[in-house]
């Protein structure tokens, strides 16, 4: 599932202005160093900082980020931020659960899948009336389905990543967002999810986009009243299933 190819480096867009040139770079870094009263860090010190960074040291993690029952903790936190959580017995139940849920919302039986072979392989034939297409978030897409790479129980947060088999735009364009979260991808805290992603992506870590999604879209910009469905999905439904 993870793209293990090393990071590719397409040619950067050419520097368009003098302000992106070396003179301004030197000016900013020079001003910072002058203010700190020193020149560039000695090599040893700089290497020390990089070595510390490579250890991925964690700071305080709240107790709620170390829950024993991750499924219960995640479901409770996600429900607390107005996501809907459905517990399914297996991935095979996904098509039926989606068809029924769409019907309960009075929505047409149609949805778009992220381009993930694991999603295409679900038994869609069990619900032949469900119109299933595959792609990204283009105009007019009303319902999307994605597979989460991880879930953070501490805050009920889904970890969604970009890639050849994922679609970032499909996480934001639809009105209704369905996300499958296998139990085996649950982590206690965000730090655990970082470790999981580093491990899965290897040299390609991090993917271009990592979306941490905690509930459906909302805004408090009118009279500080929370209204759901500002620009992203109005409704977020998380399908929790056993397995990896």
């Amino acid at each position: 599932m993870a793209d293990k190819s090393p990071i590719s480096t397409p040619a950067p867009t050419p520097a368009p202005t003098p302000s992106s040139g070396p003179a301004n770079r030197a000016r900013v870094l020079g001003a910072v160093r002058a203010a700190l009263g020193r020149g560039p860090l000695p090599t040893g010190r700089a290497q020390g900082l990089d070595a510390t960074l490579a250890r991925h040291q964690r700071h305080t993690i709240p107790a709620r980020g170390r829950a024993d029952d991750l499924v219960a903790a995640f479901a409770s936190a996600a429900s607390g931020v107005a996501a809907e959580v459905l517990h399914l017995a297996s991935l095979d139940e996904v098509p039926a659960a989606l068809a029924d849920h769409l019907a309960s919302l009075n929505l047409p039986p149609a949805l778009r899948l992220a381009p993930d072979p694991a999603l295409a392989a679900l038994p869609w034939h069990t619900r032949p009336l469900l119109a299933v297409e595959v792609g990204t978030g283009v105009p007019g897409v009303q319902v999307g389905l994605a597979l989460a790479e991880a879930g953070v129980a501490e805050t009920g947060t889904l970890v969604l990543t970009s890639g050849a088999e994922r679609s970032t735009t499909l996480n934001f364009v639809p009105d209704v967002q369905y996300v499958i979260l296998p139990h085996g991808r649950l982590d206690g805290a965000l730090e655990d999810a970082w470790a999981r992603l580093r491990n899965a992506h290897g040299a390609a870590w991090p993917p271009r986009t990592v979306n941490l999604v905690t509930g459906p879209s909302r805004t408090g910009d009118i009279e500080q009243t929370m209204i759901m469905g500002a620009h992203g999905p109005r409704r977020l439904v998380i399908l929790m299933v056993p397995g990896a």
Partner: protein
Amino acid sequence: MSVQQQPSGQSSRSFASRAADAMVDANLQTALNRLSTGFATRRATAIAAVPEFEALKADAQAIKNHVLDNLDHYLERFEAEVIARGGSVHWCPDAESARQTVLAICQAAGARTVTKGKSMVAEEIALNPFLEANGIEPVETDLGEYLIQIAKEPPSHIIGPALHMTRDTVEGLFRSHHPSLDPARDLTQPETLVAEARQMLRPRYFAADVGITGANFLVAETGSTVIVTNEGNGDLTQSLPRVHVVLSSIEKIVPGHEDAATLLRVLARSATGQDMSVYTTFSCGPRRPGDADGPDAFHVVLVDNGRSAMLGTEFQEMLRCIKCGACMNHCPVYGAIGGHAYDAVYMGPMGAVLTPQIEGLFGHTDLPAASTFCGRCAEVCPMGIPLPDLMRRWREKSFAAGWSPTAERWGLGLWSALARRPWAYRLVARVAAAVLKRLGSKGIARLPLTAGWTAGRDMPAPAGRTFSDLWAEQRRG
């Protein structure tokens, strides 16, 4: 060329007269009255639910202190990681170079419209009027930013830019700015107003050539930029157009993803009282070969604009600020007059410290004095920034520069303005009088806060009450 619709710090009117107007603006006062029940209450609830919050704050502060001491190193590491992933980094010493850089990127992309996520740095460098003057249409997509854009107003709060507007104001704006709007459509509820904005902005995301976002954090470890939003507008802005431009000031750096995790725990709780904002997005570089979607080009515009000059000075602590807005949500002066009276991009206590640095003290000598020195801002600041002390430093500088008369005139004006609003006057005067007495301050003791002037306005402060108690009580009254 004029690049600001309302040049800050250059208003022909004094702070005092703006404050006085604000205090008799009934709509504004209605909006401000929601602060204590909105942001402030939600923050308190969210923080009470995490017993480890003090430890998280201490960690967050230590992380930023470490970054500031090694800022050059982490900036260079960040740059190297962005470049390794195919992105570009542009270094901008000041607002003008930042504007020119963004314009050049837009022009190179042949852009006619750009969508924008919420960015205070974009406000700081007055990007929108500059792009417009150069034939590029900027479209704000954060609901609050969109509202103030069509109203042609500056933001009144760093988190809720349209916090000063009531739903009636918003309805009026939509009716006059959305030509296809059915006159019969009911727009009396926040829900219908949000739906209208969603519908209007949707096609703009798909049509934009460039998407510009701010950054809450820059992660040196991987060259990732981080945005934190609730609406999802920032994500549509940065994932649909061909080019993604990130506009950030240089102090937004954190070393690694673990450090970002700690700061995120502190930010959302302090800002909106959420455990996590709805959408926290890490982005690095353009789309990778084979990726299903994402922008073809990725530019990070790093803006100094006065930050480096704060390093190594007493103002370095201000660079820990994560722009959560808690200080203004709990400030009695902000709560009485709102954000516009500050006539600056950054308002409230953090603005009173930051604005003189970014825009120069001259023209803003009033701001550091816009305080009762009650200390509530420093109490709620998750980054432990001693805001009243830093405001006092600016006051000292303005005295030293011979600009004190302005501040004193301002003082008189503000107090007389406050006097028109009895509860605010009583509260602020009492607290300030008590604080000033304790400090033995000479500068402001001559303000009409002395016993003679306040005699007859008998509101003796009950001994032993905290400021919060008084504040809550006065708000209820």
